[in-house]
């Protein structure tokens, strides 16, 4: 398992390649990349807790699905439109487990990992408000 919280960009191809070659039993890698839409932003986080929260989410996913390995990378700092924000990649024997665990981790990240987005809109900077849709997405796994 790899969890990284970093300013730097990441390389999806290289990360998934690293996951894929762990074992010849891996038949499926589902991955997700979140990107900045339209507006420049700064991402603040809670160092220490962030890694801990992500590790807990990943552990919960491993308890629910057959996950052979997974990688979660979340960036912080200043990001511009089209920049990558987050990567979740899950390797499994079969695609059903890989898809479910990947989506679960993203939904939980959205509601449980301590990151905050501040958007730079024309009128100035403003903190993004949490979405009810994200709470609902996380709740459906309970």
């Amino acid at each position, binding site marked *: 398992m790899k969890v990284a919280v970093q300013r730097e960009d990441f390389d999806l191809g290289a990360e998934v390649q690293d996951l894929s070659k762990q074992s010849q039993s891996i038949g499926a890698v589902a991955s997700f990349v*979140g990107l900045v839409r339209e507006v420049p932003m700064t*991402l*603040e*986080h*809670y160092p*220490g*807790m962030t890694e*801990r*929260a992500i590790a807990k989410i990943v552990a919960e996913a491993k308890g629910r699905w057959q996950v052979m390995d997974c990688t979660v990378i*979340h960036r912080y700092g200043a990001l511009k439109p089209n920049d990558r*924000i*987050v990567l979740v990649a899950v390797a499994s024997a079969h695609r059903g487990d890989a898809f479910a665990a990947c989506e679960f981790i*993203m939904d939980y*990240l*959205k*509601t*449980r*990992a*301590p*990151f*905050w*987005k*501040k958007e730079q809109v024309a009128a100035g900077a403003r*903190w*993004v*408000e*949490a*979405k009810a849709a*994200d709470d609902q997405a996380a709740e459906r796994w309970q």
Partner: protein
Amino acid sequence: MKNVRILYFASVRENIGKDAEEIELPAGVATVAALRSHLRSRGGAYESAFAEKALLRAAVNQDMVQPAAAIKAGDEVAFFPPVTGG
């Protein structure tokens, strides 16, 4: 020593103008909710940042917790708005 370290993030940090402080736990303050009330009672920027209607989340020792969660000397307590990463 009955100190707790308190961290503030995002809009909470901006509103009260600091990212951390160490305070001595007042007598009777044994939960996150009680600490929140105590901070609100300081008035000024704290009063609005910790207003009852303010949608806040809290973590104790880097685990997200409910308002009824216990706090004790030596804990790291954080207050922040609902998260918006991912």
